């Protein structure tokens, strides 16, 4: 990573760590917790939907798996230490990854759009299961989790910090994969999977790896959310809107970038909280949300960060070509000059 990148990361996380010490109001801290949750989940979704180009619409199912894992455990166990649920997070990630593996093995054999559809079906099936397996999940009645015994005045802080660590983890994984041949392999899958397979890229392995890591992280957030809310209902624990939020934030910020999902979550989750607050329980907020969604897709189809990057890149190139002869000058002339950009 460039020095600038390290600085940017350090400054970002220093701000995150320092933020609670300003004794912010509860509603601000609550909002920060949700922004962090979605930043982590969008970063996770980005591994599959962004880098590999397989737009999963089923991630909310794994969010639900994490939520129900915590709830079911404490259905039969005492909560002796308020920090214990956090220690179980790696295990929950593992469970989600194991559930995700066979689903990915089947659905990733198909094309990206069929994959999206199969994963959305997984989502609805998970929701149906949560409603119908009443003996386990208590169905529509939902499940209670023993409330965390943190101090009331700083109740959000433990969740906030755990989520900050998780965000650092998710971003570190993203960064590491971008820096390794995994990132290279994922980009090649996204661009042209058949060709990638043909030049010896381990296509299946990287896709499955990305999916399992992605849903594992998502499940951890689900677990934290359930513990934070201390009560879960099927329709909120496994909610299509959660999937859509991950997708939308990643698209808004910029797919297949390190910071895009974080930027997207910051902008959109804040907006959503405000909208929900403004319109209360009314479904007008759904309309507003859908309109924002449509505007993003139509006006910024590539996301905020790539648009800025492109602009900078073009500017740099223009500056460079103004001063020195173009580097391609000694090459044989182009045969089909019009074939610039895009796939043939």
């Amino acid at each position: 990573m460039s020095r600038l990148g390290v600085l940017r990361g350090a400054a970002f996380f220093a701000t995150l760590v320092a933020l609670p010490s300003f004794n912010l109001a509860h509603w601000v801290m609550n909002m920060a917790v949700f922004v962090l949750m979605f930043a982590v989940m969008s970063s996770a979704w980005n591994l599959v939907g962004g880098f590999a180009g397989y737009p999963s619409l089923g991630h909310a199912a794994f969010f639900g798996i994490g939520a129900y894992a915590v709830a079911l455990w404490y259905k039969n166990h005492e909560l002796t230490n308020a920090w214990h649920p956090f220690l179980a997070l790696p295990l929950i990630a593992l469970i989600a990854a194991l559930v995700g593996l066979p689903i990915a093995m089947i659905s990733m054999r198909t094309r990206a759009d069929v994959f999206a559809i199969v994963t959305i079906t997984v989502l609805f099936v998970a929701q149906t299961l949560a409603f119908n397996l009443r003996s386990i999940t208590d169905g529509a009645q939902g499940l209670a989790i023993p409330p965390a015994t943190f101090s009331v005045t700083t109740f959000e802080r433990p969740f906030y910090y755990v989520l900050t660590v998780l965000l650092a983890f998710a971003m570190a994984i993203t960064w590491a994969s971008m820096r390794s041949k995994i990132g290279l392999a994922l980009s090649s899958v996204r661009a042209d999977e058949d060709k990638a397979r043909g030049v010896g890229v381990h296509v299946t392995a990287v896709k499955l790896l990305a999916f399992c890591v992605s849903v594992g992280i998502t499940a951890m957030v689900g677990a934290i959310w359930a513990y934070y809310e201390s009560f879960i209902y099927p329709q909120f624990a496994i909610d299509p809107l959660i999937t859509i939020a991950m997708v939308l934030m990643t698209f808004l910020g910029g797919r297949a970038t390190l910071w895009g999902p974080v930027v997207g979550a910051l902008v959109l989750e804040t907006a959503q909280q405000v909208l929900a607050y403004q319109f209360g329980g009314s479904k007008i907020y759904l309309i507003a949300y859908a309109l924002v969604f449509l505007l993003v897709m139509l006006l910024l189809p590539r996301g905020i960060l790539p648009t800025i990057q492109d602009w900078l890149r073009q500017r740099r190139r223009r500056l460079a070509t103004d001063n020195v002869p173009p580097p391609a000058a000694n090459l044989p002339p182009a045969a089909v000059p019009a074939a610039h950009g895009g796939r043939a």
Partner: protein
Amino acid sequence: MHALIQGVILGVLTAGVYALMASGQTLIFGIMKVVNLAQGAMVVFGAYLSYQLFTSWGVDPFLAIPITTVAMFVLGMAVEWAFLRPLRQQDKAELSLLVTFAVALLLEGFLSVTWKTTYRSINTGYANSSMTIAGYQITLVRLWAFLLSLGALALLFLLLNRTRFGRAIRATVQNPESARLLGVEAQRVSAFGFGLGSATAAAAGSVYGLLYAFYPGTHYDLISLLLSIVILGGLGSIGGAVVGALIVSVSSAVVSATASPTWSSMTFFIILLLVLLVRPQGLFGTPARGAI
């Protein structure tokens, strides 16, 4: 045994309306390579329209169909024009999924605000009358719904096979490149195709409203079912959609009748996964990795 056959009968009758919904969706995919995640919301919208026509003016839902289909045809064309046409070609497949999902949310929000989120149903005088044939009970309204769906499918079939416009559509489905060379206007075909898909959703919605109670969130149940059907049958194949609807509907009705209703909604998913394991392109689909 009796329960099994009763289940099969119910499944076949219900399959008609699902086949109608799914045919619209698979048609849209065939023409535009767009998976329309708003198809379920459009069906629910259609149901609300005929609910309103029935409660305000006493228009019978079956008679309301011409009105709702025309309205939804126009709405579909508008959606295509406003949200799908502007997408760039290279990421159309991916973005269109999200855009149509957003349209579904938009419709859900609109329906929730207009008609609130409580369950509605269309209670016609004939809704509960039934007849018994050889010991098997058949609800009349289901029979009518089935026949009507078949009629609508037949109309669609005629439209696609007997008209100039239908030929243009089929040419586009088979080979967009050569269709363009033959002077088929892709944009017009897309707009009409999306309108037609929406119109079938409206027709199916009127029928659906007669059979079941519904609320704006119903579109989530419908879309998962519809997606399973079209994937099962093979994206883009109308015949496949009909077969897929039969498989899904009959199997879940049979499971519901013989085992437990709890598991009926799981059945189609398991069938879907099994089919994808053997034939990733669906039963009647063509392998779409034609890039080689």
